[in-house]
């Protein structure tokens, strides 16, 4: 292509830009309002005594990555309210998504807002829950019915798996505390999907592991 034809083509392409709206004070105001409205609002709450009432654990911790290395498999993944990252004791990094919140409109709105915080884990006390997990008693039932200790230091223990469980539980507890503080907690449920490539599983598997955690 010659220089003149190049310039001619450039001019045509530049001139083909579709019309857009132009800036006005009202439009600037509306844009600023939209920025503010879409930003997740963080509501600080007083720290309360933690009452663990059965949280909703992150599902699939450690296993989902192998199932699908290219994308999230949950049907709600495109509408997830947040993506989170956390590091396991082995150094493996987990990524998770949170979504499919169900319940009353009030509690869903409050829950999504809480869970959408970019710094969500500042509000979540994972270490206390992991310490609780380590201090609990674990009994593994083997295939022949024998029962053996499955706590830390045994081949049935995976620090990574328990830490991932602690993340899920701590997140759920923090969320439920928050909704309780707001007086909107009724019947909330939500889902999470996570992947933890490189996480270290237990050396041995048992038929069943019970714990008082």
């Amino acid at each position, binding site marked *: 292509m010659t220089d003149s034809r190049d310039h001619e083509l450039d001019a*045509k392409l530049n001139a*083909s830009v579709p019309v857009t709206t*132009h800036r006005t004070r009202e439009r600037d105001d*509306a844009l600023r309002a939209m*920025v503010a409205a*879409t930003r997740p609002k963080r509501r600080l709450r007083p720290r309360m005594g933690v009452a663990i009432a059965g949280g909703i654990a992150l599902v699939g911790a450690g296993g989902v990555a192998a199932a699908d290395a290219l994308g999230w498999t949950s049907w709600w993944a495109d509408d997830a309210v947040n993506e989170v990252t956390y590091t396991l004791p082995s150094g493996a990094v987990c990524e998770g998504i949170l979504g499919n919140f169900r319940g009353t409109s009030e509690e869903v709105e409050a829950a999504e807002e809480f869970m959408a915080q*970019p710094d969500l884990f*500042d509000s979540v006390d994972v270490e206390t829950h992991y310490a609780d997990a380590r201090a609990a008693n674990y009994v593994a039932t083997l295939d022949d019915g024998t029962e053996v200790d499955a706590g830390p230091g045994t081949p049935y223990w995976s620090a990574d798996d328990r830490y991932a469980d602690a993340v899920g539980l701590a997140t759920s507890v923090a969320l439920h505390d928050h909704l309780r503080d707001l007086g909107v907690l009724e019947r909330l449920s939500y889902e999470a999907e996570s992947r933890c490539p490189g996480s270290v599983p237990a050396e041995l598997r048992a038929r069943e592991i019970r714990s008082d955690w």
Partner: protein
Amino acid sequence: MSRVSERLEAAVRANSDDLLAYLERRVGIDDAPDTLAEVMTVAWRRAKHLPTLPVEARMWLFGIARNVVSNAARTRIRRTRLADRLREVASAASMPAADDGVEVREAIAALDTDLSEIVRLRHWEGFSLAEIASILDEPASTVRSRYAKARDLLATALADAEPQATPRLR
């Protein structure tokens, strides 16, 4: 507000005008406000991935906008009240003018998607090819060669479309 929140809010504020223009060109003036609300929501959801440098944050936001537009082609963006005010004032501020670029836009639209988007980002949004590579998350060399191919195709298509000069009879 955390540092990442502060940085993201600053980036969104600084680029919201350009993002709105980009979306108006891609999905139309009426649907752009809802699409922009979706872009902002996704940006907050992915805040932890926000690059530190403002110029990279700008490319990151346009990358999100591009993905939202791509997804919008498959699933219609929901109308939200968030966007109503912007739609109202933006529509009032629009100036649909006599438009002689239809033929060129049709030629761009006839290109493969991976070519047409590069042309639009270059000539409608004014990004450099290096910036486009960042937005598309493609190697710069790939973007350069696709752009060159797109230009060749467009030059041919637009030359073919031009009316041939009629020999003057004397």
